[in-house]
C-alpha cells in the first residue's frame, strides 16, 4: 500500500453520488413540468367547460396506445438494467434497443396525432382556433406546449439510450460499472411518469 505514489490521482468512484446527482436533476425537471401543471390547473379551474369541449376532440385511442408504449418501454429499460446486473450483456443490449424502438414508435404516433390536429385547423394562430372561445385556445396552447416539451424529453432520452447502447457494446458499461445505464433509466422513467399525468389531463377529462 505505502508504495503507492501520492501523486497518483485516486480514482474515486461513487455510484450513489452519481445517482444522487441524477435524482436531484430529475427533481428539477419535475418542477420544470411543475410550472406547466400549475398553469394547467389555473386555466382549467377558470375555463372548465371549454376544457371539456376541447378535450373531446382528442384521439383517445392514440393517447392510450402511447401510454402503453411508454409503460412497456419503462419495463424494458428496467429489465435492461437487471440483465446488466446479472452480467447478461446480450440480453441487456437487446432490451436497450427495444426501448429505443418504443421511443420511435411513440414519436411516430405523436406525429400522426399532431398531423390530424393540424389538418383539422387546430394549429396555433389558425383562423379556426382563434375563433374558438379563449378557454379552448388555452387548452390547445397548453396541449402543444406540454406534449411538445414532453416529446423533446423523449428525444433527449432516446439520444441518451443511443449512447448507452454504444457504451454497452464497447464494454464501458459492464457488470461491475453500470451506473450510467441506471441514470439513463432514471431519466427514461421520469419521462414516463410525466406522461402518466399528461394522459388523463388531456385525453380523459371529457
Amino acid at each position: 500500500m505505502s508504495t503507492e505514489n501520492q501523486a497518483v490521482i485516486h480514482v474515486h468512484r461513487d455510484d450513489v453520488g452519481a445517482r444522487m446527482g441524477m435524482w436531484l436533476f430529475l427533481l428539477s425537471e419535475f418542477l420544470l413540468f411543475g410550472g406547466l401543471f400549475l398553469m394547467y390547473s389555473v386555466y382549467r379551474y377558470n375555463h372548465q367547460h371549454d376544457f371539456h369541449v376541447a378535450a373531446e376532440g382528442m384521439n383517445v385511442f392514440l393517447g392510450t396506445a402511447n401510454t402503453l408504449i411508454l409503460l412497456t418501454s419503462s419495463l424494458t429499460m428496467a429489465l435492461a438494467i437487471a440483465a446488466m446486473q446479472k452480467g447478461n450483456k446480450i440480453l441487456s443490449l437487446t432490451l436497450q434497443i427495444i426501448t429505443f424502438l418504443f421511443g420511435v414508435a411513440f414519436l411516430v404516433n405523436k406525429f400522426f396525432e399532431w398531423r390530424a390536429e393540424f389538418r383539422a385547423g387546430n394549429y396555433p394562430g389558425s383562423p379556426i382556433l382563434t375563433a374558438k372561445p379563449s378557454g379552448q385556445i388555452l387548452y390547445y396552447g397548453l396541449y402543444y406546449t406540454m406534449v411538445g416539451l414532453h416529446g423533446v424529453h423523449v428525444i433527449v432520452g432516446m439520444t441518451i439510450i443511443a449512447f448507452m447502447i454504444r457504451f454497452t457494446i464497447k464494454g464501458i458499461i459492464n457488470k461491475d460499472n453500470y451506473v450510467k445505464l441506471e441514470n439513463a433509466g432514471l431519466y427514461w422513467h421520469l419521462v414516463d411518469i410525466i406522461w402518466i399525468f399528461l394522459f388523463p389531463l388531456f385525453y380523459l377529462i371529457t
Partner: protein
Amino acid sequence: MEENKTLTKHSPGYGIYILVWLALVTLTALTAAVAGISFGKFSIVVALIIAMVKSYLVLSEFMHLKFEMKAFRVFVVVAILFFLLLIVLLFQNYSYY
C-alpha cells in the same frame, strides 16, 4: 471507506418488473374505462389518484427508490411538498374572489 457500498447490492429478478408492468397496464385500462363514467367533479380526482398510484409504482420499483438511501426519498418528498405548496398558495388567489 465506502467503496463497497457504491454498487447497488440488490438485484431483483425479472419477475417483479413484469408484475409491476401488469399492474401499470391494468391501471391504465381502469383509468380509461372510468373516464367514460361521469363522477362530476370527482372524475378528475379519480384520474389523478390512479396516476399517482402509477407514478408511485414506477418510482419505487422501476426507479429503485425503495432500495436507495433514505435521503433520496426525503429529496423526492421535499420536491413534491414544494410543488403542492406552490399550488395551494397560488390558488389562494384564484379560488377566493
